[in-house]
């Protein structure tokens, strides 16, 4: 295992300390329990927006804490959901009496721990609403399974909901908005290489020199199928087809196209993919009005990418464009 860390058992804490030191203008980092809040938390007069989950997906979520996006991020150990009391402590740190919305990626662990945290908050008369994000089309959904995973769509939901909260939307309408974003976003991912969870010490799976893994999530887990490596354009088409067909996206749709790297993918490759993705969508009459390209929802040092497509309406578009000031996303003022 080759990592710039001191010890697998302190890596998350050390990184959080570094994150706090590197962004003193944006965030405050709390240790034991671990959470990250806006430098000016709790912000009076607005609903707090909180997201969390296992570590190893950086910049998600801490990199999105700041004006216009998240009030708090709650990082668990690597690929392990945070615990209820940790989440509850973060809720208490950001709640400003107008309630807190919890954005939860759909994994059994995350859902259960956030559920419990929400109960703890309710017991203290803090209003909370948890909304589950499940945008990954690689997973077959059904009442009898764990359902789809939350992946790239999470960033878009955090940005859009965060912007609405900043403008003063109330808890119920934020939850409705968040569900609307989730209902209109789809993702699919692939990997060229596995990643190594620090405490595991070796890669989660092995891939041959000429193989790729299709339908991965963001926890270094194996995907749905293993295929021979293909040129970028073929990979893009392979990821986009199920994304487009699932919603389905159709001619005339206005979209946000998000090409996401899994952590170890150079920008050059993401832009190669982006170029073709936009072309493929254009051929289907799907218009790309906003774009995001980069390593935003990652699996440690994994090489690979995911493609996320969000159908925009005027409100979402306006909220996407609204100012944001975080470590990983910044624009406007």
């Amino acid at each position, binding site marked *: 295992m080759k990592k710039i860390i001191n010890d697998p058992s302190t890596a998350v804490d050390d990184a959080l300390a570094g994150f706090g030191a590197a962004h003193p203008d944006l965030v405050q980092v709390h240790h034991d329990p671990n959470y990250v809040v806006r430098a000016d938390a709790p912000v009076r007069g607005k609903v707090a927006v909180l997201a969390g989950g296992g570590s190893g997906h950086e910049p998600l979520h801490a990199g999105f804490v700041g004006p216009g996006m998240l009030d708090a991020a709650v990082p668990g150990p690597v690929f392990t959901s945070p615990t*209820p009391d940790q989440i509850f402590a973060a809720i208490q740190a950001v709640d400003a009496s107008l309630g807190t919305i919890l954005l939860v990626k759909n994994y059994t662990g995350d859902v259960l721990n956030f559920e419990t945290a929400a109960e703890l908050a309710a017991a203290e008369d803090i209003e909370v609403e948890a909304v589950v994000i499940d945008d990954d089309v690689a997973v077959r959904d059904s009442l009898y399974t764990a359902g789809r*995973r939350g992946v790239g769509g999470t960033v878009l939901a955090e940005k859009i909901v965060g912007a609405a909260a900043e403008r003063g939307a109330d808890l119920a309408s934020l939850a409705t908005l968040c569900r609307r974003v989730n209902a209109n976003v789809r993702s699919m991912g692939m990997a060229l290489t596995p990643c190594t*969870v620090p405490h595991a010490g070796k890669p989660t*799976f092995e891939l041959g020199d000429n193989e790729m893994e299709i339908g991965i999530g963001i926890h270094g887990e194996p995907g749905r199928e293993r295929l021979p490596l293909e040129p970028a354009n073929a990979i893009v088409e392979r990821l986009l087809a199920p994304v487009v067909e699932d919603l389905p996206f159709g001619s005339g749709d206005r979209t946000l196209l998000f090409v996401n790297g899994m952590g170890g993918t150079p920008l050059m490759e993401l832009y190669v993919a982006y170029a073709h993705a936009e072309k493929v969508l254009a051929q289907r009459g799907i218009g790309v009005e906003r774009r995001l390209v980069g390593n935003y929802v990652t699996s440690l040092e994994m090489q690979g990418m995911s493609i996320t497509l969000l159908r925009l309406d005027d409100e979402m578009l306006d909220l996407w464009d609204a100012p944001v000031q975080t470590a990983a996303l910044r624009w406007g003022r």
Partner: protein
Amino acid sequence: MPDSDVPMTAQDLLRVIADYQAVIAENRAYLIELDAAIGDADHGENLDRGMKAAVTRLAETDTPTPADVLKTVATALISKVGGAAGPLYGTAFLRAANAVTGKPELTGSDVAEVLRAGLTGLVARGKAEPGDKTMVDAWEPGVRAAERGVEQGRSMRDFLADAADAAEQGMLATIPLVARKGRASYLGDRSAGHQDPGATSSAMLFRVLATVVDHRV
């Protein structure tokens, strides 16, 4: 309950927890490996962290009742593990504790009730059914074997040994299954051919319980 049967004390339970912690620590890498194959390579790390916390907290508790022991473990797991295993095992221990609140010791049928309550909690929380390739696949046959033993008037030592055997069989039976709950479900058919990590750690719990009772002086 056969008259000869010695009830289970809080001390016995403390021993169970201590031994289970040791077993998990020993099998940390093994459980990580099982989870790497069909999950995210953290089950061993998660439980190891949680059981160490449980043991630490128990060391700070004076003269607990059986329910106190179970509840302390539950809260340690809930507040230290995270992931799926934390709330699931945590709920199981919490419901188990609630089932025997106030009792100074546990008879054989109390023990079977404790196990049943744990399983009920697990299912209430995780909504998994037998055959979904989860912890439930070890717990369910384990609990049923214990209950059958009680009905048949077998000794605690004997029915817990049966329960451990049944849990282990349930664990092995997860191998061919296609997962319908938890992370392994994301793999679809590719999840078949692998043993479920949670069922494995659960079978270990049943085995420790049987062994501690077996070795009582």
